[in-house]
């Protein structure tokens, strides 16, 4: 009886969450005469293929629309924003985690909060800024503005990630005679690689999803990104080509969904620093990998200390971000 309720509930959530995607799938491959039957005709079941599936909408999408162009534009913007974000956010995250001492934490929090300032508050001043710079209706405007969303978040991400990498590897290199700068240039990059991967995935998904700035800055169809072009430019006047529209939505969703799922298996917490659980209960795949590579100390919570915490005598606040902001069991127990 309990199992039945469980399966029923699970099925309910799957139907609710997945139904629009099923609908994309069905619409993509349906013939028009199967698609456009009014919903008041109860004898025609819209949930299934009443006629054989067709590829005509897919051919229309790839052959007669600007969709391939939008995919290229999107990838170009992704590549440029990834380069900028990695170049700016990774050193900053390292600086806050390893070099800034006790101020790092606060400054990291401050930088993270700018991530909460939404595009819908900034698009008006940005539209003026972009036209001042002469960048209106260009991909360059997106490449300039998107890092304002990725840099704050990724700086925070790299900072949190480094807190979970044992400091001892770098310390050992310094004992071996490396200067601090040499450690940063030669030792640290190897340790940060999994963190950089997270930054790349986050930037990729964010650029794929962004809509507001693209809508504000881009006006001509051939400059659009996928998330803008599909809902705005595939609709010709009042004519909706629902087959092609849903095909575009489907083909864009699939790679994103795969990336998300691969990633959430490895790093269950990458959405937000606030989702990090305690490290016992929620072992973090990437951290474990980094640890294996470094193979220094067993990675209990107690060894998750940055040098800043070490220098100040490992004060009780601890270095692990999970402890700091999170909801480790001890906090929730002490809260009445």
């Amino acid at each position: 009886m309990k199992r039945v309720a469980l399966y029923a509930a699970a099925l309910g959530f799957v139907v609710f969450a997945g139904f629009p995607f099923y609908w994309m799938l069905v619409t993509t491959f349906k013939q028009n005469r199967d698609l456009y039957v009014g919903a008041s005709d109860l004898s025609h079941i819209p949930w299934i293929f009443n006629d054989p599936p067709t590829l005509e909408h897919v051919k229309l999408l790839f052959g007669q629309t600007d969709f391939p162009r939008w995919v290229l534009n999107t990838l170009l913007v992704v590549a440029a924003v990834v380069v900028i974000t990695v170049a700016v956010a990774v050193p900053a995250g390292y600086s806050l985690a390893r070099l800034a001492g006790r101020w790092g934490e606060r400054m990291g929090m401050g930088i993270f909060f700018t991530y909460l300032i939404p595009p819908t508050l900034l698009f008006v001043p940005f539209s003026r800024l972009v036209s001042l710079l002469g960048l209106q209706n260009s991909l360059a405007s997106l490449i300039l503005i998107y890092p304002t969303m990725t840099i704050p978040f990724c700086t925070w991400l790299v900072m949190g990630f480094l807190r979970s990498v044992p400091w001892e590897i770098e310390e050992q290199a310094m004992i071996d005679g490396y200067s601090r700068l040499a450690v940063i240039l030669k030792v640290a990059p190897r340790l940060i690689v999994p963190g950089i991967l997270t930054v790349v995935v986050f930037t990729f998904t964010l650029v794929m999803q962004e809509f507001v700035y693209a809508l504000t800055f881009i006006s001509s169809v051939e400059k659009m990104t996928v998330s803008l072009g599909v809902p705005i430019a595939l609709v010709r006047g009042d004519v909706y080509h629902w087959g092609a529209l849903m095909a575009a939505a489907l083909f864009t969703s699939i790679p994103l969904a795969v990336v998300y799922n691969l990633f959430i298996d490895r790093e269950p917490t990458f959405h937000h620093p606030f989702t990090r659980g305690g490290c016992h209960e929620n072992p973090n795949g990437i951290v474990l990998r980094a640890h294996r590579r470094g193979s220094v100390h067993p990675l209990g919570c107690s060894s998750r200390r940055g040098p800043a915490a070490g220098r100040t005598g490992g004060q009780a606040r601890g270095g692990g971000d999970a402890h700091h902001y999170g909801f480790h069991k001890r906090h929730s127990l002490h809260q009445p």
Partner: protein
Amino acid sequence: MTPRRTLADREDVLGGVMLTPALAYVILLVGVPFVLAIVLSFSDATAGSLRFGWAGVRNYAAILADPIFLRALRNTAVVTIGSQLLVVVLATAAAQVFRATFRGKRFARFVLLLPWAVPVSLAAIAWTWIFDSTFSVINWTLKAAGLLHGWLYWLGEPALALLAIIIVQAWRIFPFATVIVLAGLSSIPQEIVEAAIVDGAGFWRRLFQVELPLLLPVVTVAVLFGVVYTATDLGVVYILTGGGPANTTHVLPTLAFQRGILGADLGQGAAIAVFLLPFLIVVAFAMLRLARRAEVGA
């Protein structure tokens, strides 16, 4: 280790150099535009020219006397609160389901995360098709089940359109909230749950009197992010209804876009967007408090 004093070992210098590009980006392209957003709201700037004149509170006076704006303000609050209530219920329930092990769980989780992975604008266009006035599969299903006798013009009637917007926002955000609540559930000490079982507490008693109170901080965080994502979202409403029918379903971001960008009245657009600030300030304040409490608790 002997301390050396060359430049290559000065942590403060290295730290400053490595942090500067990020700080510069954040200050120049988030901080300055943020201030500019507020300054613009007191100006008569338009998109056509680069002229910039002081308008005092004229923009604010104009929008506060505008029923469309007041409606948008109310809609923003209704959509945000309504969708977050739904999110809390759905996420808490979904977390209860997904903490259990069952066959097909990997697939179920894959599907559950889809709404969060798909771009907002593409999800919104799919829902537009689902709510279509002639071809709505929801109407067909309700009629086929004998639950609907008239016809639902989902995006054509203000109240139904708002409901549709709330549904889409909740659909989009509850997977994210579920992930957070699951993380919170896994950090509840097993001893407490076991003690409750030993004391004879059943499932519902355990849920409402043991687990939910312990989950409160986590659920709060999920709701705070949900508030930001919903109140400041432009894509869902812009694509689903475009603010229509007859400007009844605008929210602050879509109205700001319509007036500021499409209508080229930057000053008024900025003034409308500024009304998002109360939502954001409440959220930022609550988060800082939560973070501090966690800090003190440690």
